[in-house]
């Protein structure tokens, strides 16, 4: 509303200024102006090119202008729209469509508890408009933001439909929730959410968490504003330290419009790994058996006589459908605007067993009831239904890669086949991944209702009070079911089949309630060259979470009836809940002088229930200043070239309190015992726990050159996270430790501590360029660039933070390390020198046995060690200090920089959009390769390249000979498993066609656009795995870029329609 008023005023003013007196002989040109949505535009200034005549359009968009006899062109100017110059022909009506300009200066940016024009902004902020993300086939908005905003590093943690995404604004500043705060129409929600999804039965890894944003229908979004510097985010105080993302949903404008947006797409896995076929596998298994002192299998004695065997990747990857339908009605009448929408989204997984469905509706309403009272509200309802076949990390993909090719998918009779069984009863393989993916259930249904109501009262000129009540209510239900089954290769002993005689089921329901209440007093005043916007407010919020779990075994009634009531044995129920509350006072003043200098100061005081009395109150101040140099008199000469140049400077502090409720206190939890429920200590308390504080300085410029032909902004920042909250891992001898499958029912949980300081320094820019703009052809380019360097400044004297990750049967001990002076979650391990090859090597190793497994490896004369990996160490380099082999920092998972390049081409009714996203630098730990190239287990398939292992005849190789068992020196954490994470992805190419108005009208449409889109078309990368974009393991910053066989992002082709009636 405010936006439009400004436009109108601006247009009117320019009209007055430009109008001159006309005396020449004239003729009249008539016509009509509409916007890109077919809505009439009022108050567009129409002027004669090379003449003096002026006119304004009417409410219905019609205009009528006198022109000089020699005039040929009319210019149309409207703030917020691109200028149009069009030739006219006498007597013919001239119909003009004006599209939104790329000049963002007048766009309104949401800054939290208010809005500001981008041109006036003192803070570092990025904005993404609905247009930037329209017609993308992603399920959730966080994925769509990738590469669209500078300073925001987004990695998809999984290609699994509905899974979460890592969003890091200006690097990683915390161990505990590095995800930003999302504010949807004023309702805050946190980006770090997980735990609702249980682990699929039989999977050894936790599932990739679900995305809270996957509940939001992207079609409903009008704009996204991302606040990056602390001066801006300080107004969110204790929750703003990772940046704030505002999502504004659509509101009605102009006369009623009914819109339909829909697409249908096909998804396909782009890349498959080259694993051994049956012939290669047979040869390899025989060699392996000999190496392990076992008898080779007779059926493999002549590999060339065998076929190619089963291609398990082909068996589990499918071409999958994706559809989306969205319909909305919006408009503005009688001082009331409305927006109603309903959406349906259905995405099948490219991997067997995965699916994501979402149903949404939304109603937004605002009404200027009287001159002094405005009321409104938003209401959204969502439901999603998500199926996970057999787990994500080390799930179905992992099993498919390892399942031997001699194992068929099906028996001749159509039943599932299993591995063959040797005469001594050894099962020569494992589970059938296709059967597992189809048989196992892991279904998550989520329901969410959220909304807000507000009333805004204008007391005096410039003084208003806004009272707002927000709520968010969430229920989810997760069901896992492992049915009974028994299948095997026809002819083998059924007692050796893959079977499960007892079905198990686990059901977990959770619900959460969030409400907040805000009172915001606003004061706006200008006098002379001074203008002031002041705001003071009070806010309280309350959040409650409860989770109930039921499980049972033995479903004698069958596998189809998945009801806990039918379990022959019901396990004790589990429940957990928590409550967090906060009360805040906030204030902000923005003062500007002469449209040149501007100063923002804000402060927030938070009191949180997450900390103990005495440590639970904190203040978060922020200041920012800007100087519009281009408005200075001395700049006027340069202004013919540079029309906007602004300098921004800011400093502020924000906080982070995202730890579990009552994490500071000591609690007990229940465990089951033979005498019923028992109680054990849950955690080590820390009553002195306090906020994590982020201190950030920012220097930025905004510029516009040649009438905004080239515009953009650049920012440099230093962000230090002080006293970061950390769930300090303690050695097992103090608190106990997880057992072999990471279960830890009675480990005493380590305390949360304020652990140290992390600093991020970064540089980011956005450049918008209108390369070609004429009435027929437009070419625009946007480049975003983000770079940050992450460094741990202090760990408060504590030793390194070391993370291990187990991958089914392999534990990678100490894979990442976080120490002072280095980035968070840096890879850590041995450096490979090569293979032990020569007699000299052997001799040297006999005297200096290498020790990478905790036991020195003795070198014997039979060369059993001769073909092993040789880890370089300090001793070898000449520093014979008697030390064991040395571990090194092996590189950071963080990229050096990420970038997004968007090119849009408009030619008449056609438009082409090409989006390229890239990430440069950083390392990936290819943990999957440890299994696929480990050569240490029988009956597992391996990469075809692994066949090139060392033998006495084949010495020119980097792959060591087979070594039985785990914990062998060849598979310890080393740079052998690290690969470059750089990639360039043709993320999206979209060709659209706007039906000409005439035809559209005949079809009773205001507008119709058809488009074809290709997502994830092509990736340039040196990474040998399925997908170089790995993300972090459940948003844990110390476990980034570890490929555990994660679900890769598919290639998607879609055909879609945008229609307006």
């Amino acid at each position, binding site marked *: 509303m405010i936006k439009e008023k400004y436009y109108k005023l601006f247009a009117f003013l320019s009209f007055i200024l430009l109008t001159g007196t006309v005396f020449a002989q004239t003729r009249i040109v008539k016509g009509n102006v509409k916007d890109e949505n077919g809505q009439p535009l009022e108050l567009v200034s129409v002027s004669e090119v090379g003449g003096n005549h002026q006119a304004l359009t009417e409410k219905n968009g019609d205009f009528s202008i006198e022109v000089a006899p020699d005039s040929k062109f009319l210019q149309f100017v409207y703030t917020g729209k691109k200028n149009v110059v069009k030739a006219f022909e006498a007597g013919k009506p001239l119909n003009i469509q004006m599209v939104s300009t790329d000049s963002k200066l007048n766009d309104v940016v949401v800054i939290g508890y208010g809005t500001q024009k981008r041109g006036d902004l003192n803070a570092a902020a990025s904005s993404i408009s609905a247009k930037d993300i329209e017609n993308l086939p992603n399920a959730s908005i966080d994925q769509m933001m990738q590469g669209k905003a500078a300073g925001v590093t987004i990695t998809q943690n999984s290609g699994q439909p509905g899974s979460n995404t890592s969003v890091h604004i200006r690097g990683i500043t915390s161990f505990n929730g590095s995800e930003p705060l999302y504010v949807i129409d004023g309702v805050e929600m946190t980006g770090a959410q997980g735990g609702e999804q249980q682990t699929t039965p039989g999977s050894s890894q936790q599932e990739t968490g679900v995305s809270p944003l996957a509940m939001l229908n992207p079609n409903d979004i009008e704009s996204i504003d991302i606040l990056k510097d602390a001066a801006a985010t300080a107004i969110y105080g204790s929750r703003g330290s990772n940046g704030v993302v505002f999502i504004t949903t659509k509101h009605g404008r102009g006369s009623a419009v009914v819109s339909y947006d829909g697409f249908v797409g096909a998804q396909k896995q782009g890349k498959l790994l080259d694993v051994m076929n049956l012939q290669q596998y047979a040869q390899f298994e025989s060699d392996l058996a000999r190496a392990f002192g076992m008898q080779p299998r007779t059926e493999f004695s002549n590999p060339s006589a065998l076929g190619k065997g089963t291609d398990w990747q082909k068996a589990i990857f499918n071409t999958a459908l994706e559809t989306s339908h969205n319909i909305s009605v919006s408009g503005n009448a009688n001082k009331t605007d409305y927006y109603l929408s309903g959406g349906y989204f259905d995405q099948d997984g490219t991997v067997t067993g995965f699916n994501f469905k979402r149903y949404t509706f939304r109603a937004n309403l605002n009404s200027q009831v009287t001159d002094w009272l405005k009321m409104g509200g938003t209401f959204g309802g969502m439901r999603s239904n998500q199926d996970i076949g057999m787990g994500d990390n080390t799930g179905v993909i992992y099993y498919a890669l390892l399942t031997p090719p001699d194992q068929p998918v099906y028996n001749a009779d159509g039943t599932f086949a299993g591995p063959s069984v040797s005469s001594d009863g050894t099962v020569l393989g494992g589970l059938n991944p296709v059967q597992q993916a189809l048989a196992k259930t892991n279904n998550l249904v989520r329901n969410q209702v959220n909304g807000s109501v507000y009333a805004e009262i204008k007391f005096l000129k410039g003084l208003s009070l806004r009272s707002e009540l927000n709520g968010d209510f969430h229920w989810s239900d997760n069901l896992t079911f492992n049915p009974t089954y028994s299948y095997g290769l026809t002819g083998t002993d059924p007692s050796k089949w893959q079977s499960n005689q007892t079905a198990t089921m686990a059901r977990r329901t959770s619900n959460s309630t969030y409400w907040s209440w805000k009172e915001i007093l606003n004061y706006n005043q200008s006098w002379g060259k001074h203008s002031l916007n002041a705001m003071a407010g009070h806010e309280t919020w309350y959040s409650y979470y409860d989770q109930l779990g039921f499980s049972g075994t033995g479903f004698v009634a069958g596998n189809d009836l998945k009801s806990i009531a039918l379990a022959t044995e019901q396990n004790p129920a589990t429940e957990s809940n928590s409550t967090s509350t906060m009360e805040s006072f906030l204030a902000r003043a923005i003062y500007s002088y002469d449209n040149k200098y501007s100063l923002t100061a804000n402060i927030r005081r938070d009191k949180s229930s997450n900390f103990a009395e005495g440590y639970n109150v904190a203040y978060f101040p922020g200041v920012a200043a800007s100087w519009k140099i281009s408005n200075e008199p001395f700049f006027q000469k340069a202004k013919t070239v540079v029309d906007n140049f602004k300098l921004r400077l800011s400093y502020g502090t924000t906080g982070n309190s995202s730890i579990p409720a009552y994490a500071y206190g000591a609690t007990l939890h229940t465990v089951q015992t033979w005498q019923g429920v028992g109680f054990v200590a849950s955690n080590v308390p820390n009553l002195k726990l306090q906020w994590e504080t982020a201190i950030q300085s920012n220097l930025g410029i905004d510029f516009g050159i040649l009438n905004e032909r080239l515009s953009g902004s650049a920012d440099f920042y230093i962000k230090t996270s002080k006293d970061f909250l950390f769930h300090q891992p303690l050695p097992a001898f103090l608190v*106990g430790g997880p057992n072999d499958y990471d279960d830890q029912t009675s480990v005493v949980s380590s305390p949360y501590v304020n652990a140290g300081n992390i600093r991020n320094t970064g540089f980011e820019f956005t450049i918008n360029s209108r390369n070609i703009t004429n009435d027929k052809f437009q070419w625009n380019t946007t480049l975003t660039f983000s770079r940050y360097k992450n460094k741990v400044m202090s760990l408060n004297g504590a030793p390194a933070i070391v993370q291990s990750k187990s991958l089914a049967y392999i534990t990678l001990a100490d894979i990442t390390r976080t120490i002072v002076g280095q980035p968070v979650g840096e890879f850590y391990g041995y450096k490979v020198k090569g293979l032990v090859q020569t007699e000299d090597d052997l001799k040297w190793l006999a005297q200096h046995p290498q020790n990478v497994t905790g036991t020195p490896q003795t070198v014997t004369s039979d060369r059993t060690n001769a073909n092993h990996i040789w880890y370089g160490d300090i001793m070898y380099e000449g520093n014979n200090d008697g030390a064991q082999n040395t571990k090194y920092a092996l590189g950071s998972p963080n990229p050096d920089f990420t970038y997004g390049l968007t090119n849009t081409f408009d030619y008449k009714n056609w438009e082409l959009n090409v989006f390229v996203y890239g990430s440069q630098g950083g390392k990936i730990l290819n943990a999957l390769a440890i299994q696929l190239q480990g050569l240490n287990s029988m009956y597992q398939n391996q990469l075809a390249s692994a066949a090139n292992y060392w033998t006495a005849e084949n010495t020119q190789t980097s792959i060591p000979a087979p070594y039985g068992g785990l914990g062998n020196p060849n598979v310890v954490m080393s740079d052998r498993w690290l690969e470059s994470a750089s990639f360039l992805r043709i993320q999206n190419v979209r060709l659209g066609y706007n039906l000409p108005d005439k035809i559209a009208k005949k079809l009773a449409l205001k507008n119709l656009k058809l488009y074809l889109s290709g997502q994830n078309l092509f990736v340039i990368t040196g990474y040998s795995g399925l997908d170089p974009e790995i993300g972090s393991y459940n948003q844990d910053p110390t476990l980034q870029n570890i490929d555990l066989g994660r679900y890769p992002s598919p290639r998607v082709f879609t055909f879609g329609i945008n229609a307006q009636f």
Partner: protein
Amino acid sequence: MSGIILTGCSKSFFDRVPGTSVTTGSYYQTDAQLMAATAPLYGTPWFGFNNKCGWAMTEITGGNMRTWSSDISMFGSLPVSNANTEERTLWNSPFTVVAQCNALINNIANANTSGVTPSALSNALGEAHLMRGVAYFYLVRTFGNVPLIENTSDFLGNFDSVPTRSIPDVYKFIVRDLKFAEANCTANVAATGHGSSGSASAMLAKVYLYMQNYDSARIEAEKVINSGEFALMDNFGDLFRGNNNNNKESILAMQWISNAGYDYGNSIQASWAYSNAITQTGDGYGSAAPTIDLVRAFEKEGGDTVRRHYTIMLPGEHYAELNANNGGFTLPLAASSQGTQAQAKKYVIGGPNDPDNSLYGTAAQAGGNNTYIMRYADVLLIEAEAILGQQAKPAAGKGIDTLASTSDATAVKYYNMVRKRAGAGQVKSFTYRDLLNERRLEFALEMDYWFDLGRVDGFNATTTSNGVQTAPHPVGRALIAQQERGTYANAYPDKSVLYSSKITVADNEFYFLVPANETTSDPKLLQSPVPYDFTW
């Protein structure tokens, strides 16, 4: 509205104790609450130890079992990497018990226990000390010198510089804990599953035996024998029936339940049972099986068929109690899951519908049968060995000579009691070698043998400057070197082709390495032990 704004939120608005968790400040206030706080010390914290690593070490490293299973096969060949998951669990699981015992002891000290009867209070403290002592007993036998922790909170800021304590110090600590337990635990309650004062005495007897303090071992063993709290079960096979949890022979046991899933049940059967035809729950992988050496050890005993039958299944052998509703289970002739033509029977209890499991049930990966920490037969053999030790008087730092023999009436009586129940012949005297063999056969697959092999060379701890135990183990090494850990090339009954496999164990391999992630957190664990301050 603004009135509410200005006054702000009340204090209770910020006091958010979770509704489903109990805070330490509000607990330990009734006898029942104390009982519910000690019960977990016998269950889930031990799960990791019981699940795989415990028997991987004691049975596979000890030479009683073998496996091709890649996650534990290195336990059969040594060394086991300090990064190995099971090796880590060997450390983590008993230390989880220690952490919970410490939490209980320290929380009780700070709790308002005015409403608790004094006997319940002292019993709870006694049980916590008992289980801490037992956990450290496993730890010291597995790792040698380890850190001694009594209160986690003492080390939050300096966990990276906690030293280990010498083996004698750890034993001293265990003795102190067990004496406290003996004095404070309720007597005659072992049948409930909670450790009793008598359980502490029995554990003390065993600890003293390891310390070669034969006099004290006898005193404690006789205390147990004379108390009458425990007795041998009449039939050896009854010891391992699901329904016989906490029987009269059970002195101390890990208490498992079948209805709470993984982490709470006895998962041994899932790994050991030859096939799911036995377990009826989909598991039963036969992923470890008795070695040829163990089978031969029973064969040498000739008449020891009862005990062998309930320890080891041989091809063609019938077990009426397994899959009883379908006529019992017969081990297929082809059964040789680890190439030894033998499968495990102990702790293999059958399916959910078998009558033996009617009381405590069994489920996938979760048997309801207990795991013995100690049973009465052990006390009898400890008494026998202590008498032999008193007579043989081994030199300091040496074990009893394997040829040393006794015909002491008491010693022979107890020795014969164990043999008689096993179906083995009676003797008039026995050598130390006989006794060690008796212990091996009696407790095979019960997570004990590797510890016997480690102690036969006496209570002799020498620790190098990098924390490695290097005491000589000539007898232990010789016993291991003879063990046949190989496989048969052909199917039953053809034993003509044997792929023999024997290993030699170095002196420093009798103790396992401290897990790598622990030494990364605390490098002091790799240095010489530091004397412990025993003032209480």
